[in-house]
């Protein structure tokens, strides 16, 4: 635990990428050369790469520990938690100073101690928890509590882990990236052999174990139309496609097996069994990159439903035939990464797409009805593409993707070659927006802890003058403000609080914000009758009085027809 806690602290404190990579390499390099450390290193890499173990001890036991170990009243522990914004950190701060100095390896915790705890009843678990906490030195407590509350998040990007592992082993980045795919799958237990496989010399071979390729990720393009020619050059050098609003996934067919991997590297084949028919119609040795959407009809962009519909399917524990019929899914393929077992990533996109079109055509002829080909959106010039983009919402897309016609398939957000056209760009339509009133606030977590930074927004239920006019909450948002604005809003919330319900403060409505969102759909679960997708604050409208905020009718006018 010591090595892990030290690294966690160091990474947590580092503010620059350079410091992070230095700290990672300083740990990984000696670990790679010392098999005795591989068991521990396997878990450390698991957490670094974003792996999330299940919660090992329920929150109520941790709260009980906080009460019994400190003798503080419950309300005071709760207040402390609200100020810290993180239960694990609150516990680490509240417990009396430790006298213990135990150092048990992370692999023992992950493979033995913590899984054993899960099988016990509450009393036995509590007993172990107190004993473990007492034996740990103060400095290791935060990492330990983070671990068992399942809230461990280390602020390193996967690319940084890849870089550090490459640096530590002398292997090239793409090989490491490939080996890391699927490493952090939920519920997985890792051991020394996994770390050994990660750092072994020689080239990686994804096909051998059914893992996906690292996804090539797009950068956001936020430029005005007249800046595009200079930035991107001739539009004919680019392939434009719709940016679909679904789940990015790789569909693999190897031997008789098929697998569906999400962009978050989760295996999701079982969530979408209806795509098994697509896989059945594909030849052996294929990896498709594309988007899963709920869609009725058969045309390439026909009947694509909003993301909310896909969400409904994701929320089902059991998927009945009825759901499958009501919410049918399609896989819109836009890239072919592997064909007949060969890695095609180095080929130009144009070539990959030509092969993809052929493959999709054949598969559809073989009964892959749910397989679609992402069509190329063409226009003679940038204004033409700009006009096409404006129609994205009509077909359920979020905008356009721009991909270099001649570019290879890259890894992560890195450019796939030396040129300006070796990146992918997502060129989204401007978000939908309304001016809304802040009515509730709550303190945030992590970076926003201790500050009233999570807000509930409302619009007017009726136009001005209507006696029934009231503020109707419709969305929660916490992102979009600068730190300085957040501090200002925090101060105003403290001054204008009317009442508190637990951690939530109701304030006198004085603040108006422009709230942007990517989509809007009818919803029975929301009081306002609508659900918004990705709501966030676009602008603080200091100029706008509360009475001039938008109404529910304005909001509903944005619903797709």
């Amino acid at each position, binding site marked *: 635990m010591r090595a892990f806690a030290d690294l966690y602290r160091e990474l947590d404190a580092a503010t620059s990428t350079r410091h992070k990579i230095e700290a990672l390499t300083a740990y990984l390099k000696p670990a790679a050369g010392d098999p005795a450390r591989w068991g521990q290193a396997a878990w450390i890499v698991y957490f670094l790469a974003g792996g999330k173990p299940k919660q090992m001890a329920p929150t109520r036991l941790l709260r009980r520990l906080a009460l019994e170990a400190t003798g503080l009243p419950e309300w005071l522990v709760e207040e402390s938690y609200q*100020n*810290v914004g993180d239960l694990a950190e609150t516990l680490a*701060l509240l417990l009396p100073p430790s006298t213990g100095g135990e150092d048990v390896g992370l692999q023992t915790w992950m493979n033995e101690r913590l899984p054993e705890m899960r099988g016990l009843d509450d009393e036995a678990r509590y007993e172990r928890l107190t004993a473990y906490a007492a034996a740990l030195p103060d400095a290791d407590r935060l990492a330990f509590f983070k671990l068992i509350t399942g809230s461990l998040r280390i602020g390193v990007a996967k690319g940084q882990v890849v870089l550090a592992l490459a640096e530590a082993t002398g292997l090239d980045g793409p090989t490491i990236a490939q080996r890391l795919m699927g490493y952090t799958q939920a519920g997985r237990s890792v051991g020394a052999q996994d770390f050994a496989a990660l750092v072994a010399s020689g080239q990686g071979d994804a096909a051998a174990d059914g893992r996906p390729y690292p996804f090539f990720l797009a950068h956001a393009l936020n430029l005005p139309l007249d800046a595009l020619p200079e930035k991107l050059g001739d539009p004919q050098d680019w392939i434009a496609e719709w940016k679909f609003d679904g789940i990015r996934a790789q569909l693999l067919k190897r031997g008789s097996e098929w697998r569906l991997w999400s962009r978050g590297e989760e295996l999701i084949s079982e969530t979408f069994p209806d795509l098994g028919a697509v896989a059945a119609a594909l030849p052996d040795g294929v990896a498709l990159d594309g988007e899963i959407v709920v869609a009725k009809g058969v045309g390439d962009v026909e009947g694509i439903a909003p993301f909310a519909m896909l969400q409904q399917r994701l929320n089902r524990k059991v998927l009945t035939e009825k759901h499958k019929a009501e919410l049918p899914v399609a896989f819109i393929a836009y890239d072919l990464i592997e064909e007949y077992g060969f890695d095609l990533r180095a080929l130009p996109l144009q070539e990959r797409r030509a092969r993809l079109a052929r493959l999709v055509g054949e598969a559809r002829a073989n009964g892959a009805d749910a397989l679609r080909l992402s069509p190329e959106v063409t226009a003679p010039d940038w204004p033409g593409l700009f006009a096409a983009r404006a129609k994205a919402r009509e077909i359920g897309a979020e905008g356009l993707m721009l991909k270099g016609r001649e570019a290879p398939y890259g890894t992560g957000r890195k450019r796939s070659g030396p040129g300006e056209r070796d990146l992918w760009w997502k060129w989204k339509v401007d978000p939908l927006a309304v001016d809304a009133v802040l009515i509730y606030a709550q303190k945030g977590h992590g970076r926003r*802890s201790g500050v009233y930074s999570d807000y509930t927004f409302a619009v007017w239920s009726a136009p001005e003058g209507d006696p029934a006019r009231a503020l109707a909450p419709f969305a929660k948002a916490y992102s979009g403000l600068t730190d300085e604005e957040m501090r200002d809003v925090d*101060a105003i919330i403290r001054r204008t609080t009317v009442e508190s319900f637990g951690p939530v403060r109701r304030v006198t409505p004085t603040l108006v914000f422009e709230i942007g969102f990517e989509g809007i759909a009818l919803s029975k679960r929301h009081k306002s009758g609508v659900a918004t997708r990705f709501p966030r604050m676009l602008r603080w409208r200091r100029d706008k009085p509360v009475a001039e905020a938008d109404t529910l009718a304005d909001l509903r006018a944005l619903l797709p027809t």
Partner: protein
Amino acid sequence: MSLIVARPEGLYCPAGDFYIDPWRPVARAVITHGHGDHARVGSDAYLCQQDSVPILRRRLGDISVRGAAYGETVELNGVRISLHPAGHILGSAQVRVEHKGEVWVASGDYKTEPDGTCAPFEPIRCHAFITESTFGLPIYRWRPQTTIAAEINAWWRANAGAGRTSVVFAYSLGKAQRVLALLDASTGPILCHGAVDPMNAIYRERGVALPATTSPAGLAKAAMRTALVVAPPSAAGSTWMRRFPDYADAFASGWMQVRGNRRRRGVDRGFVLSDHADWEGLLSAIAATGATRVLVTHGSTATLARYLSERGLQAESVHAEYGDEDVGEAA
């Protein structure tokens, strides 16, 4: 009958007709210490501890101010006023007010751990105690100053070894001098921002030992790389910082106890070094006064008042325009 009451101008003693740390101009102001939220301009006459006089003059300009030694009694309209060490910064004082056998003490800001740069906190017996509550939550538990000093010095040595300047952001009055006093000057040169220098001068004049400091202007490039710089938090991100080509920065404050605060500051390190009492410090100071009535000003007022009430004290929150609940620069 309350000896001290809250008025829109500040804490007021009706019997003596004077205010303590008023936030609006008044006729007579007794000042606990020189931080900007306690010592404000515009009052006709000021009374403060004698070490605070040069600080007030420096910050408030040409004012009518009288200095008193710790323990010296000043009578105003039959009310006996005396000032006692609060351990917060140089010249910081608790104000003891006595009238017809009733004794009240207003703490201003205070810290219970002695730090060597100002007179250590002295508990004063009283009937009613007006306490601050800046860090009035049990999550605030300070480690000994020697431990924090070791952390700061180790961090400085590591930076100097890597050829990086170390920059510590600390409030220019009090915290900056406390940091200076903790430094191991053998590591490298110590530089101070122009806002810190005049305060250092006052501390030195009053006999507080601080290591030698210079200004960045006269220093060679190579020496700059092993230097430690003490600058006010407002210097972060300013053009003044451009003179340091490669540096690691840190913020010294009690707020650094919580990770979220440190991450919002965006500094490389947070040193948990506060000039205020931690939770245990507040409770022990309050207990040591023997007061049965406690008035809680700025900070986690409601929390501390409730906790004390549950323990049988007559405790209440009092509105005061100091520090506020927010992350205060003076912390």
